[in-house]
């Protein structure tokens, strides 16, 4: 979409890549000979809605466009830790799965920098606190630096088959898992953080995970937690029964 309108340009600059959803009505569609393709142009008659409500969502669903789908909706395959690692070794592609594992490392009460990081609002790059964005390609580079703090933890997942180390647990999944915002977390005392830690540490959880094979990491696998909650014992039982059948 192209636009020469100052207001529109300013609007675009507030948007966050890969996060903002735009509903654009009455965009002008023309063939651009320079670019050799159809382009949509926003003009004074176009209406742009950022992060629209329900109706456009339904429209997306109707056309099978995935947007902001929760992991719980679409991930159904259950793995043990070993199976996750094996699959990562056998396929170069990322995949998604559920694991009923214990959280065996969750350093919520160690130094805060291991829990919370600062990211540039525009491009999401990690930045050292109070400094400007170091990303060369950051669209907001010439503007006032704006950062957001977010959770960024490394977590280990263990079951009877092994441990998947250093899985990422980041915002916004971390907020749901821990039950608090970054701001709330930073105002907690150490004791409260320890208590929060032990609510999950060494407890069996139901974890939705994205696994990415990676040659850069020693273990060859990088896990990212998409959702995590204490496991329902009945579900765990089903999972264990299934394992025993084979």
């Amino acid at each position, binding site marked *: 979409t192209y636009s020469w309108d100052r207001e529109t340009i300013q609007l675009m600059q507030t948007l966050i890549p890969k996060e903002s959803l735009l509903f654009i009505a009455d965009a002008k569609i023309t063939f651009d000979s320079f670019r050799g393709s159809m382009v949509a142009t926003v003009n004074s008659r176009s209406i742009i809605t950022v992060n629209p409500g329900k109706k456009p969502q339904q429209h997306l669903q109707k056309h099978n466009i995935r947007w902001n789908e929760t992991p719980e909706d679409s991930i159904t395959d259950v793995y043990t830790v*070993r199976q996750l690692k094996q699959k990562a070794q056998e396929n170069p592609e990322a995949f998604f*799965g559920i694991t009923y594992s214990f959280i065996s490392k969750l350093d919520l009460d160690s130094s805060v920098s291991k829990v919370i990081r600062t990211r540039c609002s525009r491009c999401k790059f990690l930045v050292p606190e109070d400094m400007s964005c170091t990303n060369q390609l950051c669209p907001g580079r010439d503007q006032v630096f704006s950062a957001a703090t977010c959770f960024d933890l490394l977590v280990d997942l*263990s079951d009877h088959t*092994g441990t998947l180390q250093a899985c990422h647990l980041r915002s916004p999944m971390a907020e749901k898992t821990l039950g608090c915002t970054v701001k709330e977390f930073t105002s907690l005392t150490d004791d409260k953080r*320890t208590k929060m830690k032990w609510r999950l*540490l060494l407890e069996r959880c139901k974890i939705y995970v994205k696994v990415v094979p990676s040659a850069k990491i020693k273990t060859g696998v990088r896990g990212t937690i998409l959702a995590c909650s204490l496991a*329902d014992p009945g579900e765990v039982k089903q999972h264990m*029964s*299934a394992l*025993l059948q084979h």
Partner: protein
Amino acid sequence: KPTLHTENRTTLLCSFGFPLLSPSGCLSVPLFNQKKRNRIPLTSTPSENEFFSHSEYMASISSATSHSTPGEVFTSQYIIKEVYFHFSSGTGPSSYTVRQQDSSASVNSRQNKYQTPRSESAQSKPTPRTGFSQMGRQPSPYSQQSRPPLPPPPPVPPPRRPSAHAVQPQKNSWKFTNSFEPQRPSFEGKRNSNQPQTARPTETQVEFDMKNQGAFPVKPAIENSLRILTAVIDGMRHWSQFRDKVPYLFEIFATLDSAVTLGRYGAKNFLIRDGKDVVQCVFYENEQVLPRLIRGQVHRCVGNYDRSRDVLICVSVRPGLPSELRNAQEAVKACDAEMRLLVKLLSEV
């Protein structure tokens, strides 16, 4: 290069490979990665171990490594085990296949939603090891009293050229040659007839200057990362004998069978019972205060079982939920199955 499934030992094994040996066969790099030295002292008592087939030569290793410091004994055991792994020639790549994949990994995705990972890794083909197949059919092992009917362990044949000079570390001399047992002809018969006897896989990792080169497929296949096992007290006692090979914590659901008493250094002591078995627990209030425990109620304890003192050192203790108790049995079974497989793998190394 062969893939390794062990993590802690990866550095040890890799340093045991190509860069380590100069053409003359002498070591030029220290074997021990000091930073990763495991400090668990040698505690295994092989005679109690019904499932270990290499207990005989493990005993001889202990004497060979008497020069080492306690911290190093543990790691040197691993080094020696890997060396044995290389020296036991002839059975071909398949004998070191990741057997664990055959059962616990292959979960079907039929109507239910469980994933079917490929049960064979790309590099190996699982071959039935008839000699050890009996182990897989054992009933829950810790209820057995008699020795299971396993064939005698394949004794490790020595290399034609003594390897003592080839594997001598810079500091410690292991008296390697003492540890080898003479090659017995019966070992030949144990080989899987499908395997070529002089197979030379393309990925020979260790370049020893030895003449009787069999296959050196390096696929130890024993996951060495931490595991958490749900078990009953009896099972915990049984599986703990392998604790020095593979690290794990236990999750136990059992009834509080005593008052909580205060011990030294702020330790809280109590007994838990399931069925006829009782175990002493200790919990240190380092990070958390012990919650109020109610005698006669079931609690969940997670911790490390100290075999020498017969104590479960708990790091997490709380009342058990009724739903957890109902479903723990299944988890125990799954963990037992996994442990049986693991023990089998350990005995094959």
